């Protein structure tokens, strides 16, 4: 039973990590139906910015709390800046072309950002300081769960609730929903679509940055490639849950995390990714729109 519980918790952590990135994927997809392949790279840039900021601040002699806050803020600011710039350069000019053009552009952006960081920084793994405080109340349970895991799980659920509220009740949330439904119509009734899309990228990038800082300090090392690996998994999770749906992204991530964890625990980690992708195919065969996606009857 203990074994099961530990695998369950491991899967929960894994799933929460995927979810932090998957939320950004699903938001962008929900609004402009674009698979933003470079979203993982925004997460990676967030983590790098935080690492650089933390190292500089550390040398300047700041305390751990100041470092955590400043590094987090800078990571968010820079991730948003990169996200918005990317949207303006690579996606906005393509809004009226075929579906494939923005996808290729996104793949190009992803390759570009990876190599940009690789060249400007390094290809080696860099140790990432553990910025998160260790919670004393968890000390007796240290063998089963870590503080950073608790932070990640709580943040994931917090972010999910906040996003849902934001989209349901705020003005920008309503504008987002309108844009998602019908961009032309939204424009006609006075929604500033460009602003809505920029906001979407800002929110998505912020989540990637928060994820980047939390996950990097949990794992303890980063390099230029972390975004791509995590990004593919997060994208899988978002599709599994029904892309475009916010609770779907979280559910899909958790399901994926547990699939991998239990497959490793009870079968073999050799094929953990095979199980993950196989499970995705299986789900999509029976629910072609994902777990929480709405199966739409196409209007004729």
């Amino acid at each position: 039973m203990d074994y099961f519980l530990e695998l369950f918790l491991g899967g929960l952590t894994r799933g929460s990590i995927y979810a932090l990135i998957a939320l950004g994927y699903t938001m962008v997809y929900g609004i402009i139906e674009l698979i933003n392949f470079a979203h993982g790279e925004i997460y990676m840039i967030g983590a790098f910015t935080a690492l650089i900021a933390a190292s500089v601040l550390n040398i300047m002699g700041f305390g751990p709390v100041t470092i955590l806050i400043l590094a987090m803020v800078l990571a968010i600011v820079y991730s948003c800046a990169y996200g918005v710039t990317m949207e303006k350069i690579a996606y906005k000019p393509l809004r009226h072309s075929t579906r494939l053009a923005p996808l290729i552009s996104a793949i190009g952006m992803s390759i570009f950002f990876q190599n940009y960081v690789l060249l400007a920084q390094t290809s080696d793994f860099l140790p990432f300081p553990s910025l998160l405080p260790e919670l004393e109340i968890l000390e007796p349970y240290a063998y089963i769960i870590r503080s950073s895991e608790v932070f990640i799980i709580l943040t994931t659920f917090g972010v999910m609730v906040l996003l849902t509220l934001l989209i349901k009740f705020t003005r920008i949330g309503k504008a987002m929903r309108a844009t998602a439904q019908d961009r032309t119509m939204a424009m006609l009734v006075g929604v500033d679509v460009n602003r809505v899309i920029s906001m979407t990228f800002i929110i998505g990038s912020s989540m990637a940055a928060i994820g980047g800082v939390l996950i990097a300090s949990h794992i303890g090392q980063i390099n230029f490639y972390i975004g791509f690996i995590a990004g593919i998994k997060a994208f899988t999770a978002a599709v599994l849950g029904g892309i475009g749906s916010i609770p779907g992204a979280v559910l899909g991530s958790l399901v994926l995390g547990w699939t991998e964890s239990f497959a490793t625990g009870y079968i073999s980690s050799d094929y953990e990714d095979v199980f993950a992708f196989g499970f995705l195919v299986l789900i999509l065969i029976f629910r072609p729109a994902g777990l929480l996606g709405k199966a739409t009857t196409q209007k004729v």
Partner: protein
Amino acid sequence: MARFKNAQSLKKGFVLTVAAVAFVALVVLPATSFAAKDAKAGPLKIGVGGAHSGDLASYGLPTVKAVELVVKAKNDAGGINGRMIELLTQDDACKPEMAVNAASKLVTDGAEAIIGHICSGATNAALGIYKDAKLVVISPSATNTDLTHSGNNPNFFRTIGSDYAQAKSIVDFSLKNLNAKNIAVIHDKGDYGKGLAELAKSLLEATPGVAVALFEGVTPGAVDYSAVVQKIKQSKADAVIFGGYHPEASKIVTQMRRRGMKIPFISDDGVKDDTFIKVAGKYAEGVYATGPKDTSKNPLTIKAIADHKRVYGEDPGAFFINAYAAAQALVNAIEKAGSTDFDKIVNALHNEPVETPLGNIKFDERGDAIGVGFSIYQVQNGVYVEME
């Protein structure tokens, strides 16, 4: 009813073209031959192939510098038998398909011997081309056992221990010094790590009274390894052998130690890296890793590193010493052979010992350097210390 005509009408030509191509190929092919090998008069060209770009460049570039240093010293001393040495470098980014292109470029450009390549897969792919062109290849870092043990590559030599030698020293150490009886073998599913783990596993299985508790691969770059760590715990292993590189090793060790698992962790050269100690921090303490025998006291090593610092202004990188030795061995063999004739160079490599930073070396019949092997290191107070 309207009459119509298909505007495209050149499809018939294709069949003809195909036939023509086949014909020309057959007729003209025998006429083509090598032009490069006759160029004996000019400088002696040595090719250096390996990863010079991408994420593995840091493994390939030190070799280029090592060869440059050796060649410069030789040229300053009048070259080999009066011929100056010229270097040709080609990037393969550690990819087999690019290695083939790089190799054919080196052959075309008239290289007469090769130092490289860096990664085993790329080396394997390139070897076929060098073998056909009858060129000697000395790699400073390709450790795959089959490269020498398969017997397919009479032109291949290396100045680094094979995976087999490394696996053997890991297993011997675990059994004899650590008295492990039930060992979990973990790898990173990669070329290097998995190959090593497979060898370790078969060595363990061949030992009576020793069991392999677990044999599993972890996905490199995955966000979390807790499930595998749980599994190791569940398997009641009394030691863990890991084949792979330090990013995965540090994640696994950290999770193990955090969960209170104190069993020994033995790994390979890919983990014997300062980044590992920095990333894993206090959890790195006590971890064992194999690495090339410590030759830092050898005066030739000291001189080579000093030269590197003088010329390039920094400390040398990975495989520098091995590449330095490889270049010296090659230069020595060509000199002793008195020509660039393939058989003579091969003969010299097998029989003419040369003084290098790795010691006085020559090569056994399979192409492995005799006397180049591994030691076990342990992390003690934040540094790797060689064990006796």
